[in-house]
């Protein structure tokens, strides 16, 4: 197992394990160098520097028993303020899981969405948890945790459809989408290749109802709209339920939501990732989604 907290010196070896003498990087083929560089970058992304030096933020959270979380509370169903200072939503539930795990309280710090990164780096709070999409242009400024939600469009079929395992199986068939959405965009991209018959609806609910009635073979919507529909229909007792719908595979496009911490907070980063990974492993994260979407 790799211990990311320990720096390991790179020593080139032959296949039999003996050291290569007089090794020079320049003697490697360019492709191998490129591969090595890519592997290093991928490793650096997946395993950012571990807590090799003290993390003042994490130390303060531990000492004061308070984690300060930056939010823009206008992002339902992730984070909503009821106007009386009561917060709810998926992000709030996730924050509560973290705080409970660490044995600390939460101090919410309200900030406009556009100012979240600046306020984080100005140390007005410890982390951003606010329906924040992954932003590759910010990777030099902050560390991002593992994704806790993928908002990309999902392919949905009826539960009695056991044959549709991917878009390829929908050759020539009708698919419902919500007009103008990312799901619509994805469907248009694949339309020619699979001869898909697109049925565009004004709302995700209408698209899902078309699937419910058997007017189409599948629907592509964003997952929040789907969960919302599922819950609303379940409330009426007549809708899709776990017995008669199925999400096919992974989202058709990536829209990952992450948490951001400062680059001087490697321990905090690892502690958040540990919570997210555990919630994914034991299925609690999916439960929190269903409860809040």
């Amino acid at each position: 197992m790799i211990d990311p907290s320990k720096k390991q010196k790179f020593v080139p070896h032959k296949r039999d394990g003996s050291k290569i003498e007089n090794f020079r990087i320049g003697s490697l083929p360019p492709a191998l160098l490129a591969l090595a560089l890519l592997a290093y970058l991928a490793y650096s992304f997946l395993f950012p520097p571990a807590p090799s030096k003290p993390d003042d933020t994490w130390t303060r959270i531990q000492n004061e028993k308070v984690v300060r979380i930056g939010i823009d509370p206008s992002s339902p169903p992730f984070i909503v303020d009821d106007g009386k200072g009561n917060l709810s939503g998926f992000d709030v539930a996730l924050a509560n899981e973290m705080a409970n795990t660490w044995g600390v309280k939460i101090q919410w710090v309200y900030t406009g969405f556009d100012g979240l990164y600046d306020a984080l780096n100005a140390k007005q709070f410890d982390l951003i948890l606010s329906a924040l999409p992954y932003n590759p242009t910010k990777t030099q400024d902050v560390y991002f945790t593992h994704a806790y939600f993928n908002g990309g469009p999902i392919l949905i079929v009826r539960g009695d459809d056991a044959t549709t395992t991917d878009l390829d199986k929908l050759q020539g068939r009708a698919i419902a989408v919500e007009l103008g959405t990312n799901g619509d965009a994805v469907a248009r991209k694949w339309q020619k290749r699979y001869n898909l018959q697109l049925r565009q609806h004004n709302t995700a609910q209408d698209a899902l109802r078309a699937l419910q009635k058997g007017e189409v073979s599948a629907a592509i919507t964003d997952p929040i709209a789907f969960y919302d529909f599922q819950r609303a229909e379940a409330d009426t007792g007549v809708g899709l339920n776990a017995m008669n719908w199925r999400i096919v595979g992974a989202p058709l496009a990536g829209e990952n939501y992450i948490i951001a911490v400062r680059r001087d907070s490697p321990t905090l980063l690892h502690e958040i990732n540990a919570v997210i990974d555990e919630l994914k492993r034991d299925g609690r994260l999916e439960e929190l989604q269903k409860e809040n979407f």
Partner: protein
Amino acid sequence: MGAPYVVEFFPWAYIENQKGEFDWDHADALVDHARQQGLTVIARLGFVPPWARPEGASTSYLDPEQYNDLADFVAAVAEHYQGRVNDLTIWNEPNVNFEWGQRPPDPAAYTELLKAVYTRAHEKNPDVKILAGALAPNLASPGTPDAMNDLAFLDQMYQAGAKNYFDALAVHAYGWKAPAEEAPSPDRVNFRRTELLHNVMLKYGDDAKHVMLTEGGWNDHPRWTKAVTPAERIQNTIKAYDWCERTDWVDVCALWVFRTPAPTYTFNDYFSFVTPDFDPKPIYYEVQKYARGE
């Protein structure tokens, strides 16, 4: 997509980085490429170079003493692009503090700026059209330091004598959450607020002058408070084009924004018609169908 016009920003600081020295290289490439695609370019002029503003002042700050410097630049643009780019928008949203050098908006000062550039530009290119306004639609109360109500700003421009110093009014027509057909009202920001701005023109006897929409439209971010659904955005956008088509005093309907150079990962990404990678969004295809009469 079928668009006949494109509004492009020609930053003064990029083209005239030193007083009297003009670098047209990038702007020429842009204009040539646009014309090759059959697009008519409307140039938005602004972005004050460091030599024309006090040290530390923002790029939207210009003192009256430097209005002739701007006039020199506008005249140079008019001359250089005669016959290729005839529509020049002077400044952007001068009724907003942020766009007026972090100072309270000043319609009389903006009118003086128009007076400085208008004659000089026409001397260099008789076919030039000076577009004024490009005001930010808003409902700011009188005395608000951050912004001035667009209707009040235009009215005070006329009172300051702007009538003979612009050839068309540039309008920013944002719909926010209102449908395209919602009737205009002074206490609402919606697409047809354009009609209220036109009424101000009529009030001052500026009947012959036309309007060009150089920004506007709807946003379909899933959570932004001023956004509509993607389907509503498409429907409103088509209705907006149709309204422009039917309105004889509107010459151009250029909506915000074809593409942003890079993703912002905010609601701003949901104004565009194609992604930063030029991947068309569904709204692109729907507008294309409308443009083709399908």
